[in-house]
């Protein structure tokens, strides 16, 4: 048997294996994914997408799955002051709707302890937070070296090889979504699991949410259910007065949420 025949057979088996294990789209992208450049895969065209997230507050049960999944998937420091996503619990008393009592112990990583002391009159709900992937990001505007940028598919990313660690972007973010990674002394934040979504997967937080409270959406995809959802629900963004073009939409967002 010639060497080339062996090689051909090996290639054939490899390719068949890929076909069987991976879906068609994932297979086409696999080589690029393996090289660490998924966005260059022929079947992922960044300009065809405009990513965002819809968070349904009515569905969030405060289990903290998203926080744990995010930290594990993205290697976020396990400290209580570094989160790419976190969950806040709001307690709103009927007589003081503008003075909510809010907590987020360890970012909601360990879930929440049941509250008894507020009685039946209190309105209690959970608000998952993350980078809003703003279309007019104040953080991108202020970065002195362009280390923070908006990708063509609408994701705000950080190039850690360029970041100075000046922290101006941390100050500029109205939502508190950025932190300094003490290991690299550069800024870090939610990437919307860019390494996953460019392979046709969803984000780690959406993947693990047991109630489907968080859903990755592609605003450029006319078939995405987001369009129907937006038409039929009262949806808002955090701090709309900041006019940052936020693409993290909330369903059932209470006026008390900051």
């Amino acid at each position: 048997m010639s060497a080339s025949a062996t090689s051909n057979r090996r290639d054939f088996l490899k390719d068949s294996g890929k076909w069987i294990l991976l879906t068609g789209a994932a297979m086409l992208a696999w080589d690029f994914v393996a090289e660490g450049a998924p966005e260059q895969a022929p079947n992922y065209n960044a300009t065809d997408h405009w990513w965002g997230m819809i968070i349904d507050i009515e569905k969030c049960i405060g289990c903290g799955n998203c926080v744990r999944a995010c930290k594990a998937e993205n290697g976020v420091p396990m400290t209580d002051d570094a989160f790419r996503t976190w969950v806040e619990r709001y307690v709103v008393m009927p007589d003081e709707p503008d003075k909510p009592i809010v907590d987020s112990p360890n970012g909601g990583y360990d879930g929440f302890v049941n509250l008894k002391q507020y009685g039946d009159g209190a309105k209690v709900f959970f608000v998952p937070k993350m980078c809003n992937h703003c279309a007019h990001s104040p953080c991108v505007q202020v970065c002195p070296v362009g280390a923070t940028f908006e990708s063509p598919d609408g994701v705000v990313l950080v190039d850690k090889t360029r970041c100075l660690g000046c922290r101006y972007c941390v100050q500029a973010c109205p939502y508190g979504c950025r932190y300094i990674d003490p290991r690299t002394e550069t800024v870090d934040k939610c990437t919307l699991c860019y390494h996953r979504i460019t392979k046709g997967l969803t984000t780690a937080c959406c993947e693990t949410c047991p109630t489907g409270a968080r859903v990755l959406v592609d605003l450029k995809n006319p078939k995405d259910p987001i369009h129907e959802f937006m038409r039929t629900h009262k949806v808002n963004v955090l701090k709309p007065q900041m006019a940052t073009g936020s693409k993290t939409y909330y369903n059932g967002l209470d006026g008390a949420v900051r």
Partner: protein
Amino acid sequence: MHGVQGFMYPNELELQWSILIVLYPYLTGLVAGAFILASLERVFNVAAVKPTYRLALLTALAFLIVAPLPLQMHLGHPERSWEMYVTPHTTSAMAMFGFVYLWYLMVVLVLEIWFDYRRELVLTWRGSTGLKRQFYGVLTLWSDNISPEALAIDHKLGGILTVVGIPSAFLLHGYVGFIFGSIKANPWWSTPLMPVVFLFSAIVSGIAAVMLIYMVTSTLRKTEISMVCVDTIAKYLYYAFIVDFTLEMLDLIHRLYVADESLLALDFMVKTKLFYSQIVVQIIIGTVVPLALLASVQFVRWSAGARKAIYAIAGVLIMIGIFAMRWNVVIGGQLFSKSFLGYTTYKLDFATKEGLLPALIFLVMPFLILWALVKILPPWEPDATVAGELRHGTSTGA
């Protein structure tokens, strides 16, 4: 553990900008103020402040050299900071500030000092030997033409530079204010008044600094303090301070009257966490007392000795008060949550990278640099013969 009251977003628990970032507007402000005092003499022909002209320029240079150092120290990756110059992000106020700084340092300040000192540099070069000769040769850039025509050109260019320098000094410190004032996420900073307030407080602190340095150096050199000079400086200081105080009060009254969402958080902060640094140190000790002292000189005929004491006390209080103002802006702006639902605490370390010790070193460093600059470029009025010669040379040239 983080000293939090109420609710902070988890990523907000640690303060991002430390005392080193407080130093940066403080030092830059001293530069701008010192330069504006220097330009009084040159552009507006206020002859009385002549004894401080060169001293003010050298003070500005000494502080300007140190100003970026605390920033560098604060950066996570100082080795990358040069990228701000080679690949700047043009929408970033911070990136553009780098160019304002360079423009001011290299084009305005260094050139103006060079033109002003060129004749003496050449004379020292000619009159010295060995290493000193080499050193001054470099400083003259090996240009030894000090003919009346050449000096006339120097004088003219120096004048033009001062005229360019005034808006540049305004730009330098106004821009520092803009870096904070343009952060819409932070209501404590986000106001169009911020650059103006920064500018006037800069003028106040710079004038006070030069006045103090002049009084101290005169005492050390056992020369007479020119009362005409310090009286005039104190008068300008008083006027600038009134404008500065008015602007700051305008900002405060506006906030209180408009009483938007952020007021609850800010009001609480001023009454608790910033009470000492804002109400006591900045407003009472650092503003009202020195303002009253300076005002008293305008209305009461104090003796020269009493005036000197008043200027010294007022000057020191102003320097402390303006430092407190920078502190309240930079640190105060980070003590409350952007959710307006809670507050954190700033813990100042001592001998750490961003602690009190490096801050103190950065505060002393400009004075060491100034001492060296004064040795190399003596700012004092030259002795009678040289002075006459100098004045003659430049005035006939001009």
